[in-house]
């Protein structure tokens, strides 16, 4: 495998950046959702909800833009994956719908049953979204049956295997850890003490899942390791990944929740970097018949379009980073509930 720094490679990296940005940002708000039901009491749950209140919608834009960029830069990947995973994606969309309205609707009415219903909807959909994302990721690693015409030729049940379920659960664990740390950072008092005591458990849960997934990948899908044999320097990322995760309990112990959050975020970034390097230059591996795989070349738009899109990205990204950083700066610190809160 050689890296030629052409437009196709740049766009592989940019799509990777958008989806990693999504995992880093929406990852924590999905994680907050995944532990929402463990938090008891109405005020406490409102604090949980409002910890992500101003930002969850912006975080989801990373997914929407990632989808749009994939459509433009690699239309065959967009078309094959989304039509191939049709039923799974429909469940993902329904979960995204329920989650969005649950956040918006929950505190609008005072009835107990109403709030309970939306609490459950919010939490269940958060877990389901994380799981389905992981399931899709697992299928990309495993490879899916493709025909010569780039079309998916399997069925829905082909997508559900022990390995893909494992990756799904690992994704839930990863976001749960990330979200628990985020919630610890945004809360104070009793609630924070309680959340803090959950952080270590969530790290242990994640590490067990992560090691199992890594072993399964190495044993059953050794093609993911090829790039690391050719370029041993990439192994450094795996080491950094472990160091980042190992750093989390240390930061928590020293009451530096923000650094703990950055560490778990770094863990997500490195994990996805390992995944992307293992995949490159393929986007979707065909299994069986690897010659039908979708690569960054046979699935891409024209060079002209990739160039235009790069111009847009160069203009747009500084703005996006500026908004994102300013919003997080404006809403820094502990959650405060006021008349406009959820």
């Amino acid at each position, binding site marked *: 495998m050689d890296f030629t720094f052409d437009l196709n490679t740049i766009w592989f990296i940019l799509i990777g950046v958008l989806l990693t940005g999504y995992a880093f940002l929406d990852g924590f708000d999905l994680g907050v959702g995944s532990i929402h039901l463990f938090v008891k009491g109405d005020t406490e749950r409102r604090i949980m909800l409002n910890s992500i209140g101003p930002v969850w919608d912006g975080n989801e834009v990373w997914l*929407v*833009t990632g*989808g749009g*960029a994939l459509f433009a830069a690699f239309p065959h990947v967009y078309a094959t994956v989304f039509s191939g995973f049709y039923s799974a994606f429909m469940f993902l969309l329904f979960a995204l719908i329920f989650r969005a309205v649950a956040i918006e609707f929950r505190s609008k009415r005072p009835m107990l049953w109403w709030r309970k219903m939306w609490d459950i909807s919010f939490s269940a959909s958060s877990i389901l979204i994380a799981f389905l994302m992981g399931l899709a990721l697992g299928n990309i690693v495993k490879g899916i049956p493709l025909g010569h015409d780039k079309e998916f030729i399997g069925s829905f049940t082909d997508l559900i295997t022990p390995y893909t379920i494992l990756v799904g659960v690992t994704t839930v664990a990863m976001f749960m850890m990330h979200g628990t740390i985020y919630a610890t950072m945004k809360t104070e008092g009793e609630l924070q003490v309680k959340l803090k005591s959950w952080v270590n458990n969530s790290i242990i849960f994640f590490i067990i899942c992560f090691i199992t997934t890594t072993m399964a990948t190495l044993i059953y899908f050794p093609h993911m390791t090829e790039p690391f044999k050719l370029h041993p320097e990439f192994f450094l990322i795996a080491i950094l990944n472990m160091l980042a995760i190992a750093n989390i309990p240390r930061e928590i112990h020293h009451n530096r929740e923000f650094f703990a959050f950055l560490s778990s975020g770094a863990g997500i970034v490195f994990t996805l970097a390992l995944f992307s390097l293992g995949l490159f230059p393929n986007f979707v591996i065909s299994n069986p018949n690897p010659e039908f795989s979708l690569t960054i070349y046979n699935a891409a738009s024209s060079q002209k379009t990739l160039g235009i899109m790069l111009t847009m990205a160069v203009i747009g990204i500084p703005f996006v980073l500026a908004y994102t950083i300013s919003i997080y700066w404006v809403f820094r610190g502990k959650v405060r509930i*006021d*008349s*406009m809160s959820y």
Partner: protein
Amino acid sequence: MDLELLSRIQFAFTISFHYIFPPLSIGLGLILVFMEGMYLKTKNILYENMTKFWVKIFALTFAIGVASGIVMEFEFGTNWATYSRYVGDIFGSALAAEGIFAFFLESGFLAILVFGWNRVGPVTHFVSTIMVSLGSMLSAVWIVVANSWQQTPAGYHIVGEGLNSRAEITDFWEMVFNPSSVERLSHVLSGAWLAGAFLVISVSAYYIIKNRHIDFAKSSIKFGLSLALFAALFQLFTGHQSAIGISENQPVKLAAFEAHYDSLASGDLYLFGWVNEESQKVDFGLAIPGMLSYLVHGNSDKPILGINAFTEDERPPINIVFQTYHLMVAIGFFLIAVTILSVFLWWRRKLFAYKWFLWILVFSVLAPQIANQVGWYSAEIGRQPWIVYGLLRTSDALSAAVNAEQVLFSLILFVIIYSLLFVLFIYLLNEKIKHGPDDVDSSYNEYQNQKVLFSKSK
């Protein structure tokens, strides 16, 4: 049922539901800019309360718009994979541009608009409101550009043959400013402003009738009417421009609008009617003879290209296009009449004097919504049987990996979920309206009480 029909129904259903909300956000967003601008200028607390109340309504419409909008972003890939492969270079670019230039702007500043009142100064907050409004309109820009390219493709060339053929960009700006982009965008935007304006007008008129929140309502309705007056008249202009454009670029669509079959005859303008597609006549119709020719060519005797100039496999279904188009036009004129009459009464200081007229204003909220929906139906059904006009047929654009049962299943779920959401939206909107604007300062206490309610119920 077959895959094509089900996929079309699902797309139509999901986009129709989605399209209830973005126009409200676009219209309300602009009104919020004016309201908050007035607050900054006058420091009058009334304007602050107005802004805060309408922000809450805005946030509700925005949330459902986002939830149902994500579906649209991915539905091209799930249900129209062949189309996605064919137009990825072009349509995909516009969607990606919408994400990077509009959605990030909109969602980022929305956080400050809704939750940032105590976190930033008044000027920063006002700037955020402007940015949200700008973002919502930029989003319309890119999505209408993408759709207009489907109507009037430009700036592209076709590469490859048969199943492997794709449209690729040759000139980006020619693609963006394709022949129908500008007039369709202005038509869509003014439709959206009307939707937002009439929501404000409707709720305010209701308060006035019920004699509640009088200052709030009387002031709000003026913001709504000012925007409505501009938008309703601008709509007439953009509608005319669009029709001229269609006569040049999609003559069969224009012919379908007026059920004009005979290419040698001058075109009549129907006020209403029922098209008999067998006999190629309009039954029960009332028409202004030659008016279509006059509007298009400035000469009522000049012939207009008719439906019969096109083969059967190039024609859209005529009657439904005719009906949706005429309903849109009728509502457009109704809105112009209502708005002008309201502004006249406002000028004569009689706007709040007639209860029956206020009731008309209350129910007028439905008019722009219906017009926006049927206007899109006439535009999209009028493009059939093409998904990209003249290039790709809708029947050739489906997903090969998806079967009819899967789509039937997802369609049923969409119908159930969206019906539920719609009922909940109306319920929450109604509760919000019943509760009224004065809750802006007291809701904190309202929630304080709920804590007691919760601990009691344990």
